[in-house]
């Protein structure tokens, strides 16, 4: 438990640093902050996310995630049109059953959803990311702390637009609470509330440090130890990059498939069961 206290302290320090008022820019290139925060109308989005953790050795696994993100437009009000296709890969390291870390890259394909825009329809975006996840059992439930740091290169849809570089600082707190069982195991329905704060920094970020705050609740079902499905609803808001006084809002339906195959031979699997505890 001592290590968790340490983690918690680190997270609190990080949050304090993120919310330091000196980071706020009051005036960017003549854009004036409004006298009161403005909130854009919420957009609705649908995400179909697949999460793969493929075991490749006793301590290493390959993270392979593909997300399809749709967002509404005026022509396609509900399911919307494709907004981003995510390809997130990494190599994960299992420190122990409760702690693991990953390092890898992301290639995101951004589609221009602005129907009136005459710019490019598709632009790529690149990231290097690393994350640290800590799990903790609480009664029959599990809680998770996830710190994810991303180094992100993005460009606008305009022709020949420059890449801008930003860092993202993400902290997510999540719980998974079994509903029809005393623990998380196959044939178990669980509810998972989560909240994630995404901060950002970089030369291009002036004032809009809170990129996103996501509040999600999903309900999942563990089919087998290697396959879980989940679905839920997320509300998120964050400062727009253009004006820190303007907040965007989203309602997102999320559908997830989690799979974790293990193609190793039986004899290689055997000793790994208990790792080092």
């Amino acid at each position, binding site marked *: 438990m001592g290590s968790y206290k340490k983690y918690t302290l680190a997270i609190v320090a990080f949050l304090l640093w993120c919310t330091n008022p000196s980071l706020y820019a009051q005036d960017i290139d003549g854009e004036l902050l409004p006298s009161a925060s403005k909130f854009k109308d919420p957009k609705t989005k649908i995400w179909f996310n697949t999460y793969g953790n493929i*075991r490749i050795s006793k301590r290493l696994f390959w993270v392979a995630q593909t997300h399809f993100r749709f967002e509404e437009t005026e022509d396609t009000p509900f399911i919307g049109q494709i907004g981003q296709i995510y390809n997130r890969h990494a190599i994960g390291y299992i420190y122990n*059953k409760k702690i693991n870390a990953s390092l890898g890259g992301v290639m995101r394909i951004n589609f221009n959803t602005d129907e009136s825009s005459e710019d490019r329809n598709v632009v790529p975006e690149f990231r290097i990311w690393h994350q640290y*996840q800590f799990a903790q059992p609480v009664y029959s439930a599990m809680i998770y702390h996830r710190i994810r740091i991303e180094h992100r290169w993005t460009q606008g849809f305009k022709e020949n637009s420059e890449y801008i570089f930003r860092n993202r600082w993400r902290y997510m707190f999540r719980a998974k609470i079994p509903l029809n069982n005393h*623990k*998380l195991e196959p044939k178990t329905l669980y509810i998972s509330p989560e909240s994630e704060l995404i901060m950002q920094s970089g030369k291009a970020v002036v004032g809009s440090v809170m990129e996103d705050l996501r509040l999600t609740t999903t309900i999942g079902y563990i089919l087998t*130890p290697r396959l879980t499905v989940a679905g839920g609803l997320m509300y998120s808001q964050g400062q727009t990059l253009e004006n820190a006084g303007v907040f965007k809002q989203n309602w997102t339906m999320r559908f997830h498939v989690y799979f*974790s195959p*293990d193609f190793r031979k039986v004899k290689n699997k055997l000793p790994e*069961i208990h*790792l080092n505890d």
Partner: protein
Amino acid sequence: MFQFTQSLYRLTFIVAFLLFYNFSVEAQEKLNYQGPLSVGNYTGDANYAYRIIDSDTLFDGPFRLKRANLDALLQKQDYTFDFSGSFQDNYPNGFWKFQFGQFQSNNESQVVDYQYRVAISGVQEEASGNIVLGKPDGSWIYSVNKIEDSKISETLFKSSIIFDKGIPQQNFRIENDSLILAGRFLRNGLTHDEWSLFDSSGIGVDESWFFNDGLLQKIRIESSGSIDETPIYDNYAGQTKIINLDSRYIEALAIYQYAILNSDRPVGGKMQSLLAQNARYYKKIDDILSELGESSFLPEFKVKVPYFPFSKEEEQQINQILADYNAAELISKSFLEDTQLNILKLSDQEAAFKYEVINQISNDVLNPLKQLVLFINNKVLEFAPRKNLLESLWNETKPKSEFNIEVALDSVKINRTFKLQSSNTIDFSVFDLKTMQNISTTILANLEAIKAELNQTLLNEKRQQELIALEEKLILQRNEMHNYIDSVGVESSGNIKRTLNSLKKHADNALSNYSALTELNTKLSAGQKLLSCYLQINKLAKNIAQLPEQEDTIKEKYKDRIWNPFMATLMDEEVKKRITSAYRKFIIPYFLKHAENEFECNQVNQLNDLMSMTYQRMLELRVENTSKLERKLRKVTDPIVVLELFELQPLTTDQE
């Protein structure tokens, strides 16, 4: 020319013959041996002369064998001996001296004339005299002395006998620490005149045997003034036989007394014990000499006894009596000591009657015959008048053909008569060996008849007892199964419950089939079969009741704990599902079907084995590499094929 050649051949032959003859004479020349030698129990250093004839060693010339061990003497005690004399053509011949010693030392030594001297105490035996061709000749003295501090302190035994080529002559004298015996012989070795035995302390009994030309007339015993004279062969004038004065002679005296006077009083007093002591010492020397060469060293004191020789028929009758008696005695003894009969006679009147018949035959007939057989075996029967002897034997219980038997059963007494079968031809009033043989033969025949009847009774009784015990076991097994099935059935699932109930039904059907049998023998064998069947069914019931538990164990065993990266928890994953599901879906129903439908003990036995082996195999398959097996199982639905794929032997009925 021709003649000359022939003569030359002849001469050559003669020369050659002489030469070889010389060689063979040469080969018979005396050799000498010096070294260790064992003669009977005596092992020591030997020094003797010998010849070798036809690869046999013949003693010829001086001989000496001795032993003395100073270490043993100083340690504890030493047994010494020293035999010296000479042989002639393997016969002891000449002067011989035998010494046997058993000594301890007091461990005090002194040096006298450049020699160490150790004083010894113990017993020294010494015998010496002349031997002619293996037989004692002249005066022989055998003495046993007690030695204390290297000096004779007491004479324990001494005998002086004069022999003429082995036959005792003139006077002799034998004494030990308490008795002195003196007597004389005729030239032919027969005892003669008065033989007197004195008590050397002067206060005991004096005993005199009076012989006349070897025939003992009377024995006079004088004890503290009173004289008791027993006539023996006093006026006997019939045929006699010369025998040795030994224990058989004493028996001969006794049987004669028994026949004439019907007295079993022992004849004589201590004389024969002293003679026997003497004989033992002489035998010691005879054993040594016989071991080495040819000898008959035992002193033969000759006596005459009345002699009643057997006719040819009588000899046959004697042999028949011996055979009959031994067989009859065996039968009567085995029944009288039979525990089962001894129990049965308490409740079964017929058995009690037969037991009593055997008992009476044993007492009234076999006992007198036993005495007769003893006389025959001791070879003294011919030394007593036959008729008198046999009358004496049957003095108490006359031989008879009918026995009055009293059977007491539950304090009710019943009197019955047992008549010897085929006894009509026996004349019980004539006392001769023919009658004796008739009696022994008839008794044996009757005992054999009783034996046959009793054996049948005992066998039936034994079977009946066995059957009762068997049926008790059967009921016990049946109840045990019912109780077991009832107790586990409550928690069992439908299929298993149904199978267990059908086992109960099978078992009960088999029991009622069995109880319909009536014949004792078939019942016994059917019962034994059923019992072993019940044991198997009981086992089967247990095996079936265990199935769910085994299934759980297998399920548990076929689980892998794997780490779920999304939940960060360990989860159980079922592995090798094709194997476990084949077991669950095909094999278990196969077991249940067979258990329900078949009730052949063989099959039950096989099924039991198969079930245990299958369970074992399931546990083994968990750790084996089974990818090929799992692939093959994909399309299989036949339990027999599944079992074969699991490398198990399906039940034989299914293989045909």
